[in-house]
């Protein structure tokens, strides 16, 4: 029956997916198995996204289904029961820029690929990135920016992280970012899309 749940999610049958998830949980299926089925479904969607077989609308609806199913699972989870993460990524749109689309897509893809994403939102000052890395022990930082004005805050954030002596890898992306800009900002890498960001994170998480 978990296969049916996987199919319902990947076929974008929202009502069916929710109904099946609830039936599984009520029928005594371990919540982590349901979560696992969700993750498998999200992997399929991620692969399709990468292959250009599904697009942003499907990612958004999949995210919606995931959060609804997660809510349904919560009451069934025992204390401390959670899944292992590959690593922690601090993510945000840099200071002065309030665009969140690219950031949300990348955060979503990192999340379904097994990373714990600490999303700082938009218009994030360099200090907040530094403080959050210190507080969480994250080893990867993702800086997003859509506007051309994002280059200087990106550069400032990379510098602030270096000055604080933090051992993190920094990726940048979004809008007009390219190799010229990566060089300008001093970031470790730039990702041209969400899958590039996931590949980088996996490589860095070793």
């Amino acid at each position, binding site marked *: 029956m978990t296969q049916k749940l996987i199919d319902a999610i990947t076929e974008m049958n929202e009502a069916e997916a929710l109904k099946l998830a609830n039936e599984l949980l009520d029928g005594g299926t371990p919540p982590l198995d349901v979560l696992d089925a969700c993750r498998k479904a999200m992997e399929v969607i991620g692969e399709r996204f990468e292959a250009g077989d599904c697009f942003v*609308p499907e990612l*958004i*609806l999949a995210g919606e289904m995931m959060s609804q199913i997660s809510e349904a699972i919560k009451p069934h989870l025992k204390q401390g029961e959670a899944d292992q993460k590959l690593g922690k990524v601090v993510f945000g749109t840099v200071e*002065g820029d*309030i665009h969140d689309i690219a950031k949300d897509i990348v955060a979503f893809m990192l999340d379904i690929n097994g990373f714990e994403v600490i999303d700082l939102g938009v218009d994030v000052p360099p200090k907040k990135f530094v403080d959050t890395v210190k507080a969480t022990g994250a080893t990867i930082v993702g800086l997003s920016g859509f506007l051309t*004005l994002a280059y200087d805050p990106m550069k400032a954030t990379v510098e602030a992280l270096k000055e604080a002596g933090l051992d993190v890898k920094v990726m940048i992306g979004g809008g*007009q970012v390219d190799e010229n800009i990566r060089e*300008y900002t001093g970031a470790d890498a730039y990702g041209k899309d969400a899958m590039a960001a996931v590949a980088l994170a996996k490589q860095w998480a070793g």
Partner: protein
Amino acid sequence: MTSSKAPDADKPAEQLAAERNQRVADAVQLKQPDRVPLLLGMGYLLAEMGGITKQELYENPDKAQALLEEAALRFQPDALMGAWHTPGPSKALGDRMTKWPGYGLESNGSFQFNEREFMKAEDYDAFLEDPADWAIRVYLPRAFSKLEGLAMLPPLGMALFGYYNTLNFGVLSAPPVVEAFEAIGEAAKRTAEWGARMVASAQRLAALGFPPFTMLAGSLIEAPFDFMSDTLRGMRGVFLDMLRIPDKLLAAEAKVSRFLIRHAITNCKAVGVPYTFIPLHRGSDGFMSLKQFEKFYWPQLKDMILQLIDAGITPWVYYEGVWDERLAYLAELPKGKTAGSFQDSDIFKVKEVVGDTMCIMGGMPLSLLKPGTDPEKVRERTQRLCEEVGKGGGFVMTTNVMELEGCDPDLVDVWANATREYGVYT
């Protein structure tokens, strides 16, 4: 500064203005001008060059005008634009969807759109039943803090009750309603002042030999899909609608198309400028599938463009993002009747596929004009653009984002000079 004088800098202003105007007009009409025209959207580079904040650029129009004239004389473009619009009306209305330097942003922040879900999925029925009533009494109070009082108005259709409806006028004296009307009055005043400044600015530039660039002055509308997304449902909302309630979304698109097209035509006639600017947002590669594009985006946009063309208007479409997989659709448009600006599409492929269809604008990536770029790279890119995209005409050289914020003015010189050097048609 290494700027050499433009080859025609010694001509009288009147002649220069006429030549520049012709150059742009020819390219837009898909003809071959005497050389590739250069359009500079100065944007916030004006503030950077003048050593003032972006806020001051808006608040000190005389200074802004002086900087614009300086830039015009230095770079000698065929067409130029200053900073986008003004925050005045947004401030007056308590606009919640834009942020400006000094309004929602620090004095050196850059104008940004703050997309929010002002319309909820459950609003579709009321929206479809009577969009104007929903707009005034539900939408405006949500989107503009100073217009919250409009929620108190009786249904707008009650105006049809003539004399009897005057019995309802008491509510018009309620303080929140009064405040809303005052805010609208203030925004109207600010808009009129801005319009007058634009006209005066154009006249002063014309006296210096720079013809008015009017392509933004006719009217501005959006593709029906983007209209439902940008200021109403937000991207997240509209994409969920596409999958959850497709019929309602399509019905809403059909409904808004009618007044968008009507507005564009009326406004172009009123100002006497036959151009409609249509910036596109969510139809580009990567956002939706081609199947979705064919159902929710392209037919509605194409119909809009065709109706505008029928009305004698030249639609100027900004193809934001990447359109590489969608260029074949653009080739369906009538030849020589539209202009297209391209942001991140492969501009050489654009020329190949739609070079016979529309005037192409763009080509210079903003990132190449950032401080630190080797000037030779700028010249090489300019040369290739002139030779390949400029081939046979129908090309306006400009940056991929049509403005110059954060660029190195010396590299802009290099680019402008190279355009005049390599852009000559023989």
